[in-house]
């Protein structure tokens, strides 16, 4: 935090502006210290830690079944995918064979979560630019997904549906019918999104050529997900290191090369269509059988360290567990996508105008609890 004296006594006509910790455009308690010269950004300094809940430390005192619920609270928009990553890591340690049915259910749920997350991002990003209507349209379709989740998993946002060895309960009988109805509706609605926002001239002028991130920078900042793929870095974990049934599904890794805000926007819009394609392939072919593998009552991971990574809606999530052979993990580390993506914000915004900062930040799709954990 810069004090008043520091701001006033600043030399070189520089002005320091605090954006946040409470600011409507940061979607949470993110604090940015921006150094301005006139209206041009010289430096962006993110200050983190306002919503740190020490989830990693908390997980060390929970057993391998219990700690999964806490990870829903990291990146709450892709809570399901976080749970998936944790379940995969525990299964890797215990060498549990997950039944086919559970794998199919997991991947369908993951993709539904991804669509829901991207829809919320689309609405929130348009709101950052001053357009209020898209937010309601996005939430209208997202509501269908949350209702499907509520019916099968029991909760709308923090599902806690994954358990080591499969999923907690079997699918709701109406699940397939509802998902198909959603796909059919969503196909027509996504064209509406393009009509409303993508083709809009004001939107395009604020996005194209703004917030440029080169391929080299994207790699060196450790960006993943849509941010890196917009700069032409191939980093989709689902494609490069397939987990569960992703290797059986035909889908394209979406890549753009421009590296600007508009490219990042287009990546996510196209990813939603790709997710729809994946769900369509899987929804009719869910095999019969168990939804959960038989596991021991008390899970004990063998001594050693285990690392898994998955592709969340924001990028690559890595779960690292160090086990001493006890019922609780010795150390857990989460490599969260939002943290690395935020670190590239300085590079993107430097030299640009203050008004473009919010637009650039909107395309990063930041979830603050994911950054602070």
């Amino acid at each position, binding site marked *: 935090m810069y004090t008043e004296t520091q701001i006033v006594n600043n030399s070189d006509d520089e002005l320091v502006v605090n954006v946040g910790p409470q600011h409507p455009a940061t979607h949470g308690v993110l604090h940015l210290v921006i150094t301005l010269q006139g209206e041009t950004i010289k430096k962006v300094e993110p200050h983190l830690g306002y919503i740190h809940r020490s989830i990693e430390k908390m997980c060390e005192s929970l057993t391998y079944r219990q700690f999964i619920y806490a990870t829903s609270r990291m990146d709450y928009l892709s809570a399901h995918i976080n749970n998936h990553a944790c379940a995969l890591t525990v299964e890797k340690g215990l060498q549990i064979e997950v039944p086919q049915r559970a794998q199919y259910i997991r991947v369908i749920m993951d993709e539904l979560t991804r669509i829901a997350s991207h829809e919320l991002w689309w609405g929130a990003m348009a709101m950052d630019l001053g357009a209020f209507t898209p937010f309601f349209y996005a939430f209208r379709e997202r509501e269908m997904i949350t209702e499907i989740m509520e019916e*099968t998993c*029991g909760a709308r946002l923090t599902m806690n549906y994954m358990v080591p060895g499969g999923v907690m309960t079997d699918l709701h009988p109406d699940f397939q019918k509802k998902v198909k109805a959603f796909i059919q509706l969503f196909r027509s609605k996504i064209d509406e999104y393009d*009509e409303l926002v993508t083709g809009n001239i004001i939107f395009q002028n604020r996005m194209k050529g703004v917030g440029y991130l080169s391929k080299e920078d994207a790699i060196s900042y450790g960006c993943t997900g849509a941010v890196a793929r917009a700069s032409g870095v191939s980093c989709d974990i689902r494609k490069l290191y397939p987990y569960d049934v992703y290797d059986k599904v035909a889908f394209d890794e979406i890549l753009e090369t421009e590296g600007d805000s508009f490219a990042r926007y287009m990546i996510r819009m196209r990813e939603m269509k790709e997710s729809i394609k994946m769900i369509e392939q899987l929804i009719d072919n869910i095999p019969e059988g168990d939804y959960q593998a038989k596991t021991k009552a008390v899970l004990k991971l063998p001594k050693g360290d285990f690392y898994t990574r998955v592709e969340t809606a924001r990028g690559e999530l890595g779960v690292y567990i160090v086990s001493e052979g006890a019922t609780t993990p010795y150390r857990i580390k989460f490599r969260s996508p939002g943290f690395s993506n935020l670190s590239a914000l300085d590079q993107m915004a430097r030299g640009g105008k203050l008004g473009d900062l919010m637009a650039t930040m909107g395309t990063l799709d930041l979830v603050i609890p994911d950054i602070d954990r």
Partner: protein
Amino acid sequence: MFIKEYISEIAKATKSLWTGMKLTGHYFVRPKTVITQQYPDNRDTLKMADRFRGEVTMPHDENNQHACTGCTACELACPNATIKVITKFELTPENKKKKALDTFVYHLDMCTLCGLCVDACPSGAIQMGQNFEHSVYDRSTLTKKLNKPGSKIREGVE
């Protein structure tokens, strides 16, 4: 040439703005497409999903009997120490000592509604209720005793 481009740019821009406005107008004149729930007014007809996790409940049958054996599996499964199972010893007809449930304490204020306790219960004694309106004036009322007074374990549940 420059003027031609300039004018076509303006025409394109105006068209893109109108396409967006057309969509907004489309929904503006069709109020039936609005999906907003009038929540406090629709409480009588509002039905939550069967699996919705609102609170932990212990169903009792008409004879005031439950299925809890007091095995504390739920207490061990809970990540937040929300559940405390207090047990006692009862005498069976064969004059043997048997563990039985005395009080099932449930701290709703600490519960994250993850559903691990219901998943862990071997006899299906606890379930997730659909009630989600938990706001109270006194926090201490959120600590609940789930087994009803005078209730007993159902015959045949081990």
